[in-house]
């Protein structure tokens, strides 16, 4: 049974695209058939983070408008054969996406894949509402920071009212994913801690991704962080999160950077 999962946040720059790529790759690594869909029309970036920017020929809008067939627009990942990308268009014509058109494409994707990960644009306008419209589950990416938590709250309200499931009186299963978390700063009371965020948003936690240089390193080379350095702290955190999505019970720990001998000797703190 295919699942449509939207990765959303309201606020920009919190790690939606990084998360879509990393979880997509992690799910594919565990044998699932996965497609990641970029809904950020006009500002597409998932292709770049996935390292497929030079292979884009057709995009979501072309498929919605019937200019291209779905198989023509799907790009197969070079590293994982069961991971695919449906890119967004670079033109600013976002009115080209209609509810019905996107619904048709999502239905076709449902027949081909186990997981359909929709990378939402920032904001609460049309692109973001379309990305969440057909979702069965949602990941709300949140930074431990007041503006991000506020926007997450707003997005949660929209997931409960503007989705097809909500309109049918059903639930969209929601998960919070906290990114850019610094356990040291949270312990010193300089950063909102996990319990604060979960209490405020009243939504269950999917995972905690620590602040890490590995995220930038992975996007620099166009590889999802879970594939680029599988042993890094964010990669392990994303892999744990993907296992929870598949229904496994995985203890919730914040993976720490593995310190080298010199770091230990000098007592350097991670991050």
């Amino acid at each position, binding site marked *: 049974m295919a699942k449509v999962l939207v990765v959303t946040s309201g606020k920009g720059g919190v790690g939606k695209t990084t998360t879509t790529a990393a979880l997509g790759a992690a799910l594919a690594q565990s044998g699932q058939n996965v497609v990641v869909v970029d809904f950020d029309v006009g500002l597409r970036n998932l292709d770049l983070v996935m390292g497929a920017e030079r292979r884009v020929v057709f995009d979501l809008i072309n498929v919605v408008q019937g200019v291209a067939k779905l198989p023509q627009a799907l790009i197969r990942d070079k590293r994982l054969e069961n991971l695919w990308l449906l890119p967004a268009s670079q033109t600013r014509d976002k009115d080209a996406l209609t509810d019905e058109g996107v619904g048709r494409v999502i239905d076709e994707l449902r027949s081909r894949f186990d997981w359909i990960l929709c990378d939402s644009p920032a904001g609460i306008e049309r692109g973001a509402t379309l990305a969440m419209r057909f979702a069965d589950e949602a990941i709300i990416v949140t930074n431990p920071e007041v503006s991000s938590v506020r926007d997450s*709250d707003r997005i949660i*309200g929209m997931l409960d009212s503007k989705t097809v499931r909500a309109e049918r009186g059903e639930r969209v299963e929601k998960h919070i994913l906290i990114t850019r978390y610094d356990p040291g700063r949270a312990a010193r009371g*300089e950063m909102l801690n996990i319990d604060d965020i979960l209490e405020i948003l009243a939504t269950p936690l999917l995972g905690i991704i620590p602040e890490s240089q590995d995220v930038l390193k992975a996007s620099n080379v166009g590889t999802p962080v879970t594939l680029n350095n599988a042993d890094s702290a964010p990669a392990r955190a994303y892999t744990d999160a993907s296992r929870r999505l598949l229904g496994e019970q995985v203890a919730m720990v914040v993976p720490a950077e593995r310190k080298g001998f010199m770091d230990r000797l000098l007592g350097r703190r991670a991050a």
Partner: protein
Amino acid sequence: MKLLRLFGGREATAPVARERLQILLSHERGLLGQTDLLVTLREEILAVVSKHIQLDPDKVIVKLDRGKTVSTLEVDIEVPNNFDKKVAERRMAG
């Protein structure tokens, strides 16, 4: 307290963040029912103005601010330069 901070070096700001968010969100959630009203207002205002002026739909902002005694509905529409000339031209042509 300040002396403590002086020795402690760092200030715990997270509790302030938490409290501010709790107050703010309890207020905003109360207004949640209003969201649909604002969307409807925005769409209808856009439709009326668009009959006469070509608009970028993204440049129409409708906000509702709740005050203690009065509330204000703020409508902010950005129109392109020379829109009035274009309207006049169209009338002449028509």
